[in-house]
């Protein structure tokens, strides 16, 4: 698929759980995650985000995050990757679900983004 989804959360369980939730409705959308720190603690880690970009088989990525400090690491990761990544300031679970469900049925990216606009919360 052209587009993939990346989930960035301070907590690895949240990232894993969101992946599980959205894969149910989007079997063909590549979803990769960066959750928590390497040692399992709560936090975000730029290297793990870059890894999630690399591991995603899509070249264009939609990235969703939980809290503001994840956003800073996401932005740094975006500056350092070759992939085309766009981050959304939208409700993490709800917008990742919406995006994945729409991408699965090959919705145009403009239409996906239009739906995401309603989910902006940060």
């Amino acid at each position, binding site marked *: 698929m052209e587009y993939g989804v990346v989930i960035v959360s301070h907590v690895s369980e949240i990232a894993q759980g969101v992946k599980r939730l959205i894969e*149910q*409705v989007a079997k063909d959308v590549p979803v990769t995650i960066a959750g928590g720190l390497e040692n399992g603690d709560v936090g975000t880690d730029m290297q793990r985000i870059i890894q999630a970009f690399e591991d995603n088989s899509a070249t264009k990525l939609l990235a969703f995050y939980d809290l503001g400090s994840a956003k800073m690491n996401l932005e740094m990761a975006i500056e350092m990757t070759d992939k085309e990544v766009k981050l959304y300031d939208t409700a993490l679970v709800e917008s990742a*679900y*919406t995006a994945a*469900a*729409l991408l*699965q*049925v090959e*919705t145009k990216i403009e239409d996906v983004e239009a*739906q995401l606009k309603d989910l902006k919360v940060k």
Partner: protein
Amino acid sequence: MLDVENVKSWMTKFNEQIQAHHDYLSELDTPIGDGDHGNNMARGMNAVMEAIADKDFTDVPAIFKTIAMSLISKVGGASGPLYGTAFMEMAKVGDGEVSALLPAALAGIKKRGKAETGEKTMVDVWAPIAEKTDFTADDVDKAVEATKDMIATKGRASYVGERSVGHIDPGAMSSGYLLKALLEVEE
């Protein structure tokens, strides 16, 4: 007028349809949902059959309540609270008068799901049938089929919006099985 035995055979026939169309219901749920409607209903109906088989019920409301609780606790998807509420509201009717049961069920489903007709849900099957004094299997099939052209605005299918057009709603299909099973019992 249904009695406890009628309700038992209604459930038996419905269960047969659910188990027979287990995969088909999940397939319907795949393009516009999460692909589990067959599993959900099969699990729920297994629980219902277990809860009512070989058990005596004092009256129709009592068996409806047991069915409701099994569906609520075992289905696991949106259809659980919806069917559960339908049976709960039917229990409140107080007897087995079909012309009162179906409107009660419909009202329960609409209350629970906050859906109206035309939103591509099971409401689109329950509503036209509950409003009729008499209905046929053909009426049911037509109502189910009519969900195909609708745009989903409730439930998971609403996420894909216009892309839901062209697919029959899985909950509409399972509701069709339920209503046609009722017809067989009434005959």
